[in-house]
């Protein structure tokens, strides 16, 4: 024992101390290669310590959170525990994923919706939910009516939920049988009022037993390969409407199975050590698009959820559409095929809407309680209500509500702000948009301007010149387009005549602009930092190299100025 204390005791204790310092060493030096964790999360910024935040304990809480997201060897220890709870209990800490039977993964909200447990979280009763749905549908219908005046079709698309297609693998829940399913209600009401829509659920449920491929992958809550048939049905459905632009005919080849090691979808976000299953089979098809030079291809604006992403992956979207824009949850706009993102609030929404031939609201079944993520009411305001009418309505409601209890303490400005918020939230309070009748009022001046913007947008040289002008003057392209449209409307000479594009200067300015943008995005900075570390380059050099690559690619595709 005495000898042991000197030799093995010392060795083991030294090893223990080394072990305790491994996370710190890894954090500082990145000694061991680790597989990064997947999934979306809001990274905690490193908190700055001050006497106040220390005294109030906020610094301690923030640094604990920051450390939990950044300590060395975090990735393998989390994967180890995730693997344990998955293998032993069929459980995951990824809160939006629910494991079903036999390794099937489902989206948590979709499971709740299937069992009738989701709607009661948002509404006190079925009646309240149906009332909200009726309001939304009425606004959607009004918007459709207005858009038709400008040759634009507004349609709805209900994507299938995995629990409806594969209910047998669902985890057990105590269902609320009294709760309605809003997709059923929306479908019935859209049938009643003649709103054009397509509900893919029943068709996919029927297809599951005959198809040679899975309708949903076992480990993803989104459709993947099968989405091809969903989009094809949507295009055919739209072609049957009266629109001028038509989707070309698409021929889908037979599904081909292939092997791929790449983890996809929800399984990736579980952050396990081992794969859920060894089956690496994936599917693809050769898709041929019939070329018809006499037929104009459509420009489509999609508003909705993640069920649109498979479009870009499985279909040659550029061959099918002249332009494709996605407003993801009516929040982030993917403004061209390159998935350039910008906040929907920041773009000139009216001109973007009026640039489309078709506006498609698409959403998977369980998210229909949020239809249309505020798009319908906002678009109605943009199209129908001029600034002066809106201000007059604000004044009108401010006068009506000024003496109401609770408003006594508000300043005039606060009261007007509240009224403006109320009207944006419920545009049908504005005279001309109210009632069951279709709106007759129009925001004529802004619509003219937006149409003018779109004329410029569709002229490539003109758009390039304005993109250059925008970078030169540190403004967005949309702002430059609007300035140009206003000049033309006022009878002034267009900016285009004065702009001489200096490509070298443009690239330099663009580089600076992108650099500043990327520095503002923590995920982007982290990604570049990791890449720089891997390649042994300074961060600045890596950043410049990456931006140069992006610009080169844009130049190759003739999109440098967009």
């Amino acid at each position, binding site marked *: 024992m005495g000898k042991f204390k000197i030799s*093995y*005791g010392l060795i*083991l204790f030294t090893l223990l101390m080394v072990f305790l310092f491994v996370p710190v060493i890894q954090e500082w030096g990145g000694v061991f290669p680790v597989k990064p964790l997947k999934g979306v999360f809001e990274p905690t910024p490193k908190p700055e310590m001050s006497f106040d935040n220390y005294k109030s*304990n906020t610094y301690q809480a923030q640094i*604990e959170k920051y450390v939990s997201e950044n300590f060395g060897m975090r990735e393998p*220890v989390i994967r180890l525990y995730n693997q*344990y709870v998955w293998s032993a209990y069929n*459980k995951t800490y990824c809160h939006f994923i629910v494991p079903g039977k036999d390794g099937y993964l489902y989206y948590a909200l979709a499971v709740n919706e299937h069992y009738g447990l989701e709607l009661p979280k948002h509404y006190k009763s079925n009646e309240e939910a149906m009332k909200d749905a009726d309001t939304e549908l009425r606004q959607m219908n009004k918007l459709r009516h207005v858009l038709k005046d400008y040759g634009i079709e507004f349609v709805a698309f209900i994507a299938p939920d995995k629990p409806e297609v594969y209910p047998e693998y669902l985890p*057990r829940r*105590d269902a609320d049988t009294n709760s309605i399913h809003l997709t059923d209600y929306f479908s019935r009401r859209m049938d009643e009022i003649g709103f054009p829509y397509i509900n893919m659920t029943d068709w996919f449920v029927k297809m599951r037993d005959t198809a040679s491929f899975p309708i949903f992958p076992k480990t993803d809550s989104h459709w993947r390969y099968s989405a091809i048939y969903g989009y094809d049905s949507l295009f055919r459905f739209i072609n049957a409407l009266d629109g001028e632009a038509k989707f070309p005919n698409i021929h889908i080849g037979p599904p081909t199975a292939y092997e791929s090691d790449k983890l996809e979808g929800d399984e990736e976000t579980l952050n396990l050590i081992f794969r859920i299953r060894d089956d690496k089979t994936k599917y693809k098809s050769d898709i041929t698009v019939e070329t018809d030079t006499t037929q104009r291809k459509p420009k489509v604006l999609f508003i909705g959820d993640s069920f649109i992403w498979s479009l870009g992956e499985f279909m040659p979207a550029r061959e099918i559409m002249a332009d494709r824009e996605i407003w993801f949850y009516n929040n982030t706009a993917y403004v061209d095929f390159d998935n350039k993102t910008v906040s929907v609030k920041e773009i000139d929404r009216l001109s973007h809407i009026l640039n489309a031939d078709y506006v498609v609201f698409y959403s998977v079944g369980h998210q229909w309680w949020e239809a249309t993520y505020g798009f319908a009411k906002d678009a109605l305001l943009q199209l129908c209500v001029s600034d002066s009418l809106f201000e007059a309505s604000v004044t009108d409601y401010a006068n009506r509500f000024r003496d109401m209890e609770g408003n006594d303490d508000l300043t005039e400005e606060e009261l007007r702000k509240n009224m403006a918020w109320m009207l944006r939230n419920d545009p049908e309070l504005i005279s001309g948009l109210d009632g069951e009748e279709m709106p007759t009022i129009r925001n004529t001046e802004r619509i003219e301007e937006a149409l003018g913007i779109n004329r410029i947008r569709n002229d490539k040289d003109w758009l390039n010149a304005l993109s250059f002008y925008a970078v030169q003057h540190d403004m967005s392209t949309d702002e430059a387009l609007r300035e140009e449209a206003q000049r033309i409307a006022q009878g002034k000479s267009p900016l285009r005549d004065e702009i001489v594009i200096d490509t070298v200067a443009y690239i330099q300015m663009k580089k600076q602009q992108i650099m500043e943008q990327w520095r503002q995005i923590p995920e982007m900075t982290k990604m570049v930092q990791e890449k720089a570390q891997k390649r042994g380059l300074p961060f600045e050099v890596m950043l410049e190299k990456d931006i140069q690559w992006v610009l080169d690619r844009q130049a190759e595709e003739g999109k440098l100025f967009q």
Partner: protein
Amino acid sequence: MVFSSNIFLLYFMPIFFLVYFILPKKVRNYFLLLASLVFYAWGAPEFIIHLIVSVIANFYLVRWMNKTEKPGLKKLLCGISIAISIGLLFYFKYGNFTMQNINSVLAWFHAEPLQWTKILLPIGISFFSFQSVTYTLDTYRKVNEPMQRLSDYMLYIVMFPQLIAGPIVRYCDIADQIRNRESLYTDRLHGFYRFVIGLCKKILIADVIGFQVDQILGPSNYDVLTSAQLADIANKIATIDSTSAWIAIFAFTFQIYFDFAGYSDMAIGLGRMMGFKFPENFDNPYVSTTISEFWRRWHQTFSVFIKNYLYFPLGGSRVKTEARKYFNLWFCFLISGLWHGAAWNFVVYGALQGIFICADKLFLKKFNERLGRIPSVFFTFLIIVLTRCFFRIERIDLSWMFIKRLFAFEFAPFHFGDNPHLYVTMIIAAFFSFFTLSKFGLKVQDKVYFTEYNRRQHIIAFVISILAFIFCLGALNASGFSPFIYFRF
């Protein structure tokens, strides 16, 4: 700072031990004191000054008390010292509760309520206040000489392993170790193994169960809840089915044991790494055959404190009448209940424990003996489980409502597959709670906790501890961070 936090596990602990063991022995205590102050100041920045000032005041008061020959002055100084410790405890812990009740009475008489700014409870105040009291009284009773150095006394009070949740270390138990202790490599390794055992109890058992208990019963600390959240909890309790109710209260019974015993293991382990031998705090309380035995096994250092510093001064069992003896017992448990929290539910909890203790003396113990060992263990455990309702649910009306739901016999079907992680963890918790009912279990426990290991056993324990530590770190960060229950007391 808490032991099951990333800051402690990844930075504080490694850096502390590295520096501590590099430093020469004579300065280690100073470093330990500095680290302890940092440890406390990290979690309770607003109270560190209170702590330091009260410790300094006590140190000099007790020294003066020890020096003076005048019995009256001695008594007075002893009283002042205790009043400082207990006064601070009363002000911070019971100030809000007292004012709330005074205002309730005033409201009953339609009088204006008294103005009072709500005060925050400093973590660990109940523990370090009690340690101050033991120091004062042990010195007063001449059990030990007072400390000669302020730094030593301060270290006794604020030493980080036991500062915020015990064990309550009596001055007489640790006085010699502060100046003179040895930490062999095997002690350091044993200490680490013990720390990891505690960490596993906390993170892999108590936190897993606790998360589910919160899902069923809502959060435990009602002070921070809005009235809407409270109404939601009341609604949950009113409509809970009996199956869920029993699962929840059994789960909580295991949660609180593994949470608190886990913390004590960690404190004892950290102390041992530095050469301290802290008293044990738990001795398999759920294998008790009577409620009296349970309280000898549960939070032992607290029970000893109450016995020595409250029960005996009240006269203990050497009193004139039987009624007074039972009153003394019952009163001690009433105070124990109140120590756990400044709310009426804790008073009821303490009073109930007191009643069962008296019942034990009167007839229950005999009844249990007749039942036999195993049935009496489960009967006692059932009493513990039921009284825990008043511990977990911080409103008496809701606790009562919950008990009614337990016995409403409206059972919903049980599905193991709905939450296998919870049920398996509860089975593991039950297994280890009752493991020492067998001789084999006792033997294993003694081997793991209290005997020296040979080389092979050390290597095995070392590897298991390292793996368990990694596993706990994964659990802590995969499932989120949760504070310890006993810090509130």
